[in-house]
């Protein structure tokens, strides 16, 4: 049987593509259902095609407010976590000091802990301190759990850096500040960017820790969670689809620019 033989030979590829389909399927459903006109409050069953939600993406109360709040929190959390994390990463790679092992474990632990445990314990702290739950407590929490991921990303990049480049800069009479700004930082930039991107994604999409520590503040994931109980507006799908398309376009454009640069460099 030639068909069977072909399947056998390409088994890995077929299995891999099936997994890919499994991962993409929900996104397709989200996209298709952003054009739905549901009968009841829930957008789980296909009724008929409509552009209503796309024409009026903010037509649901509090939806766009929660979206903008999530973007703000993600922005500040990214900034905070990237600044703190980059410094820690540099210290860990470049210097030998006491308690290095302990600090490495401290960085690793938040990543090895179920989110719900961190969420619950942080809430305990805030309740004990009498802190008012809201924007600031969410921001504090997000910086906390993004920090470790930034450190890991930046550390990987700084570790693979050639120290001789900095030595060369110093040999050429660059001061420590100049060396750092003109040589070290540009080389470490991809790692820092990767860490920042990761932090932004983690913060923007976080639900469990936010749910514990937000009080009555509603971020976008919390809005979606609430709507799963009260009724899911089609606009959620519109925003999900828009974010997906924007992100994919950005990646593609970035790839295009990189390719263009590469071919330019070759000529």
């Amino acid at each position: 049987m030639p068909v069977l033989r072909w399947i056998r030979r390409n088994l890995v590829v077929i299995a891999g593509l099936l997994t890919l389909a499994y991962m993409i399927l929900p996104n397709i459903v989200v996209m298709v259902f952003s054009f739905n006109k549901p009968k009841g409050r829930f957008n789980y069953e296909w009724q008929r095609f409509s552009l209503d939600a796309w024409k009026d993406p903010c037509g649901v109360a509090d939806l766009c407010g929660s979206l903008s709040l999530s973007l703000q929190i993600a922005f500040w959390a990214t900034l905070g976590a990237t600044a703190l994390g980059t410094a820690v990463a540099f210290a860990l790679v470049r210097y030998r000091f006491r308690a290095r092992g302990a600090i490495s474990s401290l960085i690793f632990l938040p990543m090895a802990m179920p989110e719900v445990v961190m969420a619950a314990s942080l809430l305990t702290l805030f309740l004990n301190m009498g802190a008012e739950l809201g924007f600031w407590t969410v921001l504090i929490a997000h910086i906390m759990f993004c920090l470790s991921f930034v450190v890991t990303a930046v550390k990987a990049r700084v570790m693979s850096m050639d120290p001789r480049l900095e030595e060369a800069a110093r040999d050429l009479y660059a001061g420590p500040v100049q060396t750092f700004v003109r040589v070290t930082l540009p080389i470490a930039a991809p790692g820092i960017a990767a860490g920042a991107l990761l932090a932004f994604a983690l913060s923007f999409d976080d639900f469990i820790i936010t749910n514990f520590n937000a009080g009555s503040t509603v971020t976008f994931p919390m809005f979606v969670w609430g709507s799963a109980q009260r009724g899911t507006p089609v606009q959620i799908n519109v925003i999900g689809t828009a974010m997906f398309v924007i992100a994919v376009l950005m990646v593609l454009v970035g790839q295009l620019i990189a390719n263009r640069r590469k071919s330019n460099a070759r000529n």
Partner: protein
Amino acid sequence: MSVTEAPPAPTPEEPRELTLRKPSTRKRLIPYWLLLPGILWLVVFFVLPLVYQASTSVQTGSLEQGFEVTWHFQTYVDALREYYPQFIRSLFYAGTATILCLLLGYPLAYLIAFKAGRWRNLVLVLVIAPFFTSFLIRTLAWKTILADGGAVVDVLNTLHVLDVTSWLGWTESNRVLATPMAVVCGLTYNFLPFMILPLYTSLERIDGRLHEAAGDLYATPATTFRKVTFPLSMPGVVSGTLLTFIPASGDYVNAELLGSTDTKMVGSVIQSQFLRVLDYPTAAALSFILMAIVLMVVTFYIRRSGTEDLV
């Protein structure tokens, strides 16, 4: 690019610093200054909360009269006695999802690393792209996919798969939604990228010539995989399974959105004890037990697989 590709200079024989003088105090303090803000943040908002939680778990009292530390360890015993089904269920669901992620994710990671060729970047983007739509929206989409009378359920019904799964207790009479299978399916879906990316990273590092060498030594493709590829990908397998199992064991989103009251995981219990019942000691004790279990599993697992340099 040209900067990093400079040819390696011959290593000088003489020591780099000719005069060995003690660095000034200011210089010696640099690493500590760099560490201070980040570490302080983690100590105050990660370690300290755990201490507070430990103390809360041994307190007794009520919301009105306040809680007091009375070293009431009975809370742990009571919490375990009442909620052990949820603990076992969480570990079972998370474990199953992790195994499924490995089985589903490995071929895809392998495909990206060795077979995709010029499509590699596109496939990688497709793996990461779903992330950009909030995971809650995507999890809700599974409600549509697995809906009663939907295409998936129909196909599984015609193939009599649901008869088998119902007999095993994974589904209930022609329903997938609100059953353990739906929850495990959601968990697997949500944590697959956390399995695929570490797997891909470790597979990509493998020198292709090792495969050729195995072939030259008359190893069949299956033997090559068993003796060369898989052992070399172990770091990816270990970190991938951890990155899947840890968050899955504490997750309550999938159990709440896709499951029923019979599929509640321990995360749900902690959440409702903390935010609705307001029984803080029980919630803190449950959360501590979960943490202890996960840390034990992780330590044991890392020891057994012999990769301690994960971090």
